[in-house]
C-alpha cells in the first residue's frame, strides 16, 4: 500500500470505529496519532471530510492540544519532566545530558527517526523526580549514568531488530 492510500484507509477505519460522530473528533485524532505517531495533514483532511467538520476547525483542535504533534516523530518519544519538583532535583542537567546523548533539542527528532525529545510540565510522579518518560514507561530518579543506560538499551534493541 502506498503511504497516501494507507493514511486514507486507516483514517477511514478510525472514523468508522467512532460511529462518524462529530463530537468524537478528539478521540479520532488520538487514534490517528497512535497509528502514525503524529497527525498527517492528509489524515486531518480525510477525518474532517468524513465527520462533516471543516478542515479549518479540525486544524484548530489539532493545534490546540500539546499532546498532538503535526510533525512526524521518532519511534521513541522521550519526555523530560520540567515540573517544579523535577526542576529542583536537577531536571535541567538531565535535559542537557539527554540533548547531548541524542544530539537533538526538545521538539526535534533524530535523523534516523529513532528518538524525539520533548519537555513536559509535571507528569504526576513528583516523588520520583527527576522523571523521564519514554513512550509509556516512567523512569524515576534519573542520573547521568541512567540516561546513558536507558538510551543505550533502546538503541541496542533497535540494532537487533
Amino acid at each position, binding site marked *: 500500500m502506498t503511504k497516501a492510500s494507507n493514511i486514507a484507509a486507516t483514517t477511514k477505519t478510525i472514523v468508522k470505529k467512532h460511529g462518524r460522530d462529530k463530537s468524537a473528533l478528539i478521540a479520532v485524532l488520538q487514534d490517528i496519532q497512535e497509528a502514525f505517531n503524529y497527525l498527517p*495533514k492528509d489524515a486531518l483532511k480525510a477525518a474532517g471530510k468524513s465527520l462533516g467538520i*471543516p478542515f*479549518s*476547525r479540525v*486544524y*484548530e483542535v489539532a*493545534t*490546540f492540544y500539546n499532546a498532538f504533534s503535526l510533525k512526524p516523530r521518532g519511534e521513541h518519544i522521550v519526555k523530560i519532566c520540567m515540573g517544579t519538583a523535577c526542576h529542583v532535583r536537577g531536571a535541567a542537567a538531565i535535559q542537557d545530558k539527554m540533548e547531548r546523548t541524542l544530539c537533538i533539542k526538545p521538539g526535534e527528532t533524530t535523523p534516523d527517526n529513532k528518538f524525539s525529545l520533548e519537555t513536559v510540565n509535571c507528569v504526576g510522579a513528583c516523588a520520583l523526580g527527576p522523571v523521564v518518560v519514554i513512550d509509556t514507561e516512567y523512569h524515576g530518579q534519573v542520573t547521568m549514568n541512567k540516561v546513558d543506560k536507558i538510551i543505550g538499551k533502546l538503541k541496542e534493541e533497535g540494532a537487533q531488530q
Partner: protein
Amino acid sequence: MVNLTVDGKNISVSEGTMLLEAIRGAGISIPTLCAHEAVSRSGACRLCVVEIKKGTRTRIVTSCLYAAEEGLIVDTKSERVLNVRRLVMELLLARCPESDVLKKLAQELGVEPQARFVADTDKGKCILCRSCVRVCEEVVGVSAIGLFARGSHKTVGTAYNEKSDVCIGCGACVYVCPTGHIEMISTGDKRKIWGRTFKMQPCDKCGKYFAPVDQLKFISKKTGVPLSELTVCTECR
C-alpha cells in the same frame, strides 16, 4: 418587559435584550470592538464591561453577553468599571501597537501605552476576537479560516497557512474585522486574500469588477440561480 436602572435612569427593555443594547438604547455610549451585528457574540475584547448590582452584591460583567434582568442596577461609569476598561485597553494596545483603531480608542479613553506591558511586534492588528472566523462559518458558510494554536501563539489564518480551497474570496472577514487586520488587495480583475488570488467578475452592464467569480459560483450553487443571471453588479440590477 424587564425593568432596570442604568446610571440612575429607569429603563425597560424586552426580555432577552443584552445590557449593551439596553444601555445604548438609553443613549449611553459603551466602547466595543468585538460585538458585531453580523455574528454571534464572543465576549472577547472585554471593553464593554459594566458594573451590575443585585441586592447587595456588585460584579463586573461584559454587557454584550449579559441579558437584562428585572431590578438590576447597572453602572457604566463607576471607578471600578473605568479601571477595568483602562487595563483592558492597555493590554490591547500592547498587543497591537500598530492598530490605528486601537490608538484612537485608547486616546478617547485616556489610555497611553504602558512600559510594564512589553509591546508585541508579531501580532499585527489582530485581537483574536474570532469575528472573522464566525462570519465565515455562520454567514458565508464555508469555514475557510480559524484561530490556531493557543495562548500567546494563537493566530488567525487558514489551516497550515496554505491556500484554502473552500475560500470564495468574498471578503466578509475583512468587513467584520474591528481592527483592519486582514489584508485584501483588489487590483482590477484580481483580488488577493488569505494567500489566494481570485479572478473578479466584470458587471455585464457597467463593466466594473464587482465580485470574485468563485463567490458567484458559490451563490449560484447555493441558491440555484444560474450563474449567467448573477453577472450584473448590485448597482446595475
